[in-house]
């Protein structure tokens, strides 16, 4: 019989296998990016850094019984009668609890993994790329920063480099006494750090987020637009120091709104797309000269534009394109609608036919939450830049 207490401080097995599990989660996330990109818990995360997302393919599959078709045994507080309802299916913490063996546990459809949004972002942005960035960079606003770069024998005491001064002291002692040790300091031992001024170029980008809020834009369509802007803004922020977003919502008239209004306000009425483009051009003209700004106008609509406005819309879109880096247009269909049902009179096909500068235009169709990720890739994928 003995009682022991050993040093376990180097024991890392659990930690190591936990990392293996994390690798698996990361792989699974990569495989499921399509559904994760538009996952509610991320899009509506409100600044939280870690969110829970359901991950398929991380279950430990076994032959097991369908727990929903199985009879279970439980214990009550003394008054249980036949017919009592003890839990509802689908509610956590109720229904069948821990059974005796692994095979007796209720089936969780998905494994919920905690993921860091930044980590997902890294995976998503791996394939993304910022189109037409270079030519704007030279117009960027210069700003000055300082950086310690050099060591000198004179300087301000606050910038004393203690380590180097010590070394110098020891060297001098060695020279003078033949023994390397620390002795009294003399002025000649001291070394100071000095700085240089450096000019960096701050890059600015503005996203003109435009959305159709006409009667036909339902919750689902707004959610799609929201998921898309969520990632787009995050992506641009990795590339630019300063990303501003202007929100414009429109039906037959356009107005600049706050972010909250943009995503939540329900309105009705018809659709006149040109109104939004006109407002966007005005805002660019007055606040974001293209000399200083990388401009990314994006527009989401269901494509159901007022017929007689189409010519004007195409003309203004061309104007927009001439001032900006990339003009994106996303046409959102009904939830689950397949692509062959798209109407030929919709704006997307008109843009594709009639816009003059196609290489600065990206138009995509989104019918499903899973389409958001491909759309992002389409907008920010690699392309031949002219």
């Amino acid at each position, binding site marked *: 019989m003995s*009682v022991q207490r050993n040093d376990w401080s180097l024991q890392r097995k659990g*930690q190591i296998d936990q*990392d293996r599990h994390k690798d698996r989660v990361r792989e699974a996330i990569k495989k499921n990016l399509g559904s994760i990109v538009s996952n509610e818990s991320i899009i509506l995360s409100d600044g939280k850094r870690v969110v829970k997302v359901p991950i398929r393919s991380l279950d430990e599959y076994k032959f097991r019984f369908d727990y929903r078709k199985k009879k279970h045994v439980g214990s009550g507080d003394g008054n249980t009668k036949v017919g009592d309802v003890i839990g509802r299916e689908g509610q956590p913490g109720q229904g069948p609890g821990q059974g005796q063996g692994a095979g007796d546990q209720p089936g969780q459809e998905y494994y919920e993994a905690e993921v860091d949004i930044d980590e997902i972002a890294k995976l998503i942005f791996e394939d993304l790329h910022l189109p037409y960035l270079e030519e704007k960079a030279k117009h960027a606003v210069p700003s000055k920063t300082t950086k310690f770069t050099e060591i000198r024998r004179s300087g301000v005491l606050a910038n004393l480099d203690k380590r180097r001064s010590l070394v110098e002291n020891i060297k001098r002692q060695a020279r003078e006494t033949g023994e390397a040790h620390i002795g009294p300091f003399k002025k000649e031992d001291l070394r100071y750090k000095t700085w240089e001024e450096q000019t960096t170029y701050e890059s600015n980008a503005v996203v003109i987020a435009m959305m159709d809020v006409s009667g036909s834009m339902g919750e689902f369509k707004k959610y799609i637009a929201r998921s898309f802007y969520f990632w787009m803004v995050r992506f641009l922020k990795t590339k630019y120091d300063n990303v501003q977003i202007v929100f414009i919502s429109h039906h037959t008239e356009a107005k600049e709104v706050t972010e909250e209004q943009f995503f939540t306000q329900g309105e009705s009425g018809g659709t006149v797309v040109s109104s939004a483009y006109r407002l966007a051009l005005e805002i660019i003209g007055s606040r974001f000269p293209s000399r200083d700004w990388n401009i990314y106008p994006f527009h989401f609509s269901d494509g159901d534009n007022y017929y007689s406005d189409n010519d004007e819309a195409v003309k203004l879109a061309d104007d927009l394109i001439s001032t900006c880096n990339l003009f994106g247009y996303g046409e959102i269909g009904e939830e689950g609608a397949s692509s062959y049902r798209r109407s030929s009179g919709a704006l997307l096909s008109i843009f594709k036919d009639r816009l003059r500068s196609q290489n600065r235009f990206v138009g995509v169709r989104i019918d499903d939450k899973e389409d958001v990720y491909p759309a992002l890739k389409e907008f920010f994928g690699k392309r031949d830049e002219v």
Partner: protein
Amino acid sequence: MVDREVQELEKAVEEIWEIATARFGLDPFPVRFEIVPATVMYEVGSYALPGRYSHWTFGKAYHRMKMMYDFGLSKIYEVVINSNPSYAFLLETNSPTQNKMVIAHVLGHIDFFKNNVYFSKTNRRMVDEAALHARRMGDYEFKYGRKVVEEFLDAVLSIEEHVDPNFFIRKRNQAAEHDGERKADRREGPYDDLLSKEERTENASSKETGDDQRKRKPNFELPEKDLVYFLMKNSPILEPWQRDVMAMLHEEMEYFIPQMQTKIMNEGWASIWHSRIMREMDLPTNEHLEFAELHAGVVSPHKGQLNPYYLGYKIFEDIEKRWNNPSSEEREKFGRAGGEGRDKMFEVRELDNDISFLRNYLTEDLCDELDLYVYQLVDEEDWTVSEKNWEKVRDQLTVNMTNFGFPYIEVVDGDYDGNSELYMVHRFEGVELDMKYARKTLEYVHKLWGRDVHLETRVDEESLVMHYDGHEHDEE
């Protein structure tokens, strides 16, 4: 924990040992108690054995347990290992009272490990064995790549519970058959003793003659419930290292099965003795109070669920009572003399497993007192109590524990369609399989067998055969 506390703990261990053995007649293996930090505690808890091989599923379990601990949601006070000598791990943050109770509880478990007949064939040096396995697994990872080994483990782990709990009988028979010839044999691998002589030579010759052997009509002993063993022995595609991995997992599962078969008894037995031993100890008043609280936390009903500690505790207590003071009917009918409570308890702990324990000793009175019931899903929505009749409840309990709660699946043909395909049958006993899981698991079995796999089961009261050919699922 400071040295003084360790010394006090040593004193407590001695005292508890003395009470357990001399006063109550428990007969445990000698024990090494080890005081460990939470990280190590949860590691041992999630791997079930210290020093076991690496796999992401252990990491997942570890992460979950550790998180529950960090958030203060649950806590493991001890982990005890069935070996001789036994190992028991105590959490370094345990209070002195917690430790005393845990030590008493642990002695109950170890007495059970040592004396319950279902444990009699377990490898009592499993900690060393598991460490050797981990080492070999590590070598394979080094040689064949971590991903390769991991993916293979994924496949084997999906069927790991499908082994024969009485495998030791075959081992013994085979050993007897081939005794004497053994010395002349060239040993190929550490698990050759699991294989009969013909198989061993077959294995050896298959290396030389390649596919020739496959053309022969294979001679399987069927049906075979031990899927791991069957695939390890007969799969046409596995490399020697893969068979070795399967043999290792098979051995570890054989070691764990008695624990799965006796969860309720084992916890009940340990709880009975921790409570009695603690009552015999000279505890200061504040510790008495703390113990009472702890004990109530362990041995109490969990509403809506079954707490194995509580259930086992109540049944053992009831056995003692009924054999100490039998009713006049029991005296007449069964010739019970009375005053045999203690002896009966020890007999039960030696001879039963959870299924026979419940079937023999769960009484109507107990079912009423514990308010046990059967419940099921009604209208896809409400979990509803459907049965209170005590015999039905008891039978449902034992049904749910049959085959440790896993579907009973057998290989019935290893050369199905004359095409070396694998045909398995789920021995349907009223509950359907989780089809999504079954499909995924079939994919793993296919990975191990290398040719088409089939599983016959029942869905909606009709027979259904699931097929998987490596690309597509098909059901008819």
